């Protein structure tokens, strides 16, 4: 049995509760054990880097140190949390002075991060560490005929430079195929959703969301699958605002990839948080 430390992050407590419950249900079906970090704190998202870089790394290092105590590698379902954890670990390894300073602060909570914990995004964990073959073998309710746009977004991929998948990853597509659905060729799959610009630079963010929705519709998607709560909220909750702003008529369901996996593995819809979305997925899922 595979076991990971699990850092849900703030969004998954409420706003993205469906992502949390579907992650737990799906993991259970696949025999993956997730151990939630004890007393984790907010990773600081991107906004903390606007205030103080050293403290931003320290906030994340606290979670890394808690994860290291478990002796397990850690997975994060949110791309911003993932990016912060991944690069804090990298920078602390490359820069012993930085690590020393941060560990000095962590002492106050009886913690230390030595850099032995690997950081994985939840999507990478399922699509690569577990793998499509293993997943396919456990599918009981394949999502036949559902056309899904695999939306990677930004921070799951970038700013890693030595990663072969930075310009055209395929593992999300492979995962979608493994659960019986059809991944569409989504040309904006790595284009940014706007992140927190929806607050700070509204019209720019809405037009970015509009482009992503239009591209998915043009390429024949029934829905968009996401792997990040920020992407989900921007694409779904602001769809109506896009329609008001641009006179469009989008009604594209935006589901977490774990909700789709859960369906294919035979988990009841309610346990996956299906029904909590603002743009209903029922018309698409009814055909199954």
């Amino acid at each position: 049995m595979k076991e990971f430390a699990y850092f849900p992050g703030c969004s998954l407590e409420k706003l993205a509760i469906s992502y949390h419950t579907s992650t737990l249900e799906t993991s259970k079906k696949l025999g993956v054990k997730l151990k939630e970090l004890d007393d984790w704190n907010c990773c600081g998202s991107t906004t903390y880097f606007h205030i103080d870089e050293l403290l931003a790394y320290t906030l994340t290092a606290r979670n890394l140190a808690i994860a290291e105590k478990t002796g397990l590698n850690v997975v994060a379902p949110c791309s911003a949390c993932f990016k912060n954890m991944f690069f804090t670990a990298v920078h602390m390894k490359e820069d012993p002075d930085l690590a020393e300073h941060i560990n000095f602060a962590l002492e106050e909570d009886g913690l230390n991060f030595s850099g032995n914990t690997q950081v994985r995004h939840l999507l990478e964990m399922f699509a690569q560490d577990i793998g499509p073959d293993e997943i396919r073998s456990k599918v009981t309710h394949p999502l036949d005929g559902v056309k899904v746009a695999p939306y990677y977004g930004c921070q799951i991929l970038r700013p890693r430079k030595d990663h072969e998948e930075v310009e055209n990853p395929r593992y999300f597509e492979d995962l979608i195929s493994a659960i019986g659905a059809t991944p569409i060729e989504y040309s904006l799959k790595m284009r940014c959703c706007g992140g927190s610009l929806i607050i700070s630079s509204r019209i720019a963010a809405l037009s970015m969301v509009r482009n992503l929705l239009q591209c998915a519709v043009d390429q024949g998607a029934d829905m968009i699958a996401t792997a990040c709560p920020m992407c989900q909220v921007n694409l779904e909750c602001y769809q109506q605002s896009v329609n008001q702003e641009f006179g469009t008529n989008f009604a594209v369901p935006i589901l977490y990839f774990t909700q789709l996996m859960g369906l294919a593995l035979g988990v009841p819809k309610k346990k996956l948080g299906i029904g909590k979305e603002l743009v209903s997925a029922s018309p698409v899922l009814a055909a199954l």
Partner: protein
Amino acid sequence: MREVSSLLHAADGNPFPMCVQCGTCSGSCPVAAYMDYTPRQIIAMVNAGLKDQVMESNTFWYCASCYQCTVRCPQDISITELMYALQRYSIWKNRYKEGMIGPAFSEAFAKTIVRTGRTFEPILAPSYIFSFKMREFFQEIQNATELMLKGRLPILPPRIKRLDNFKRMIRRILPMGGAE
């Protein structure tokens, strides 16, 4: 703007003067069309020392942190980190283009974390909602209402258990002279 370079702690990219002005960053940037100056222009302006114009621009507050420029830069300059550095510099100097929502939002976000160890969406709203136009304001209310009906809005602010340790940890990074 040597101050900006020196604010870059752990950035692993090359110094900005190595920029060859190829424009790959601007061509890759999904927000460039909304910026006063594109990322390529901002780098040139930083290198030329045009501090006032840089600080008066919306460019770095419009960066969405998508890192497309950073991974594609042929000179290996960490452009996103430059944007962060400009944001920090701007907050530190309390100097930014009028009407920017980013600074107040980032500060509100940071304060919530420092106080409770967690973020809490509803408490952030006052930092931006009053800057919104009427239409945007109502869109936010509409979204919040729908989310609440679906049980997706937090009611009580969460806080971590070992908050005292957490605050002492922060004081080892940012000495606050006894102030809370």
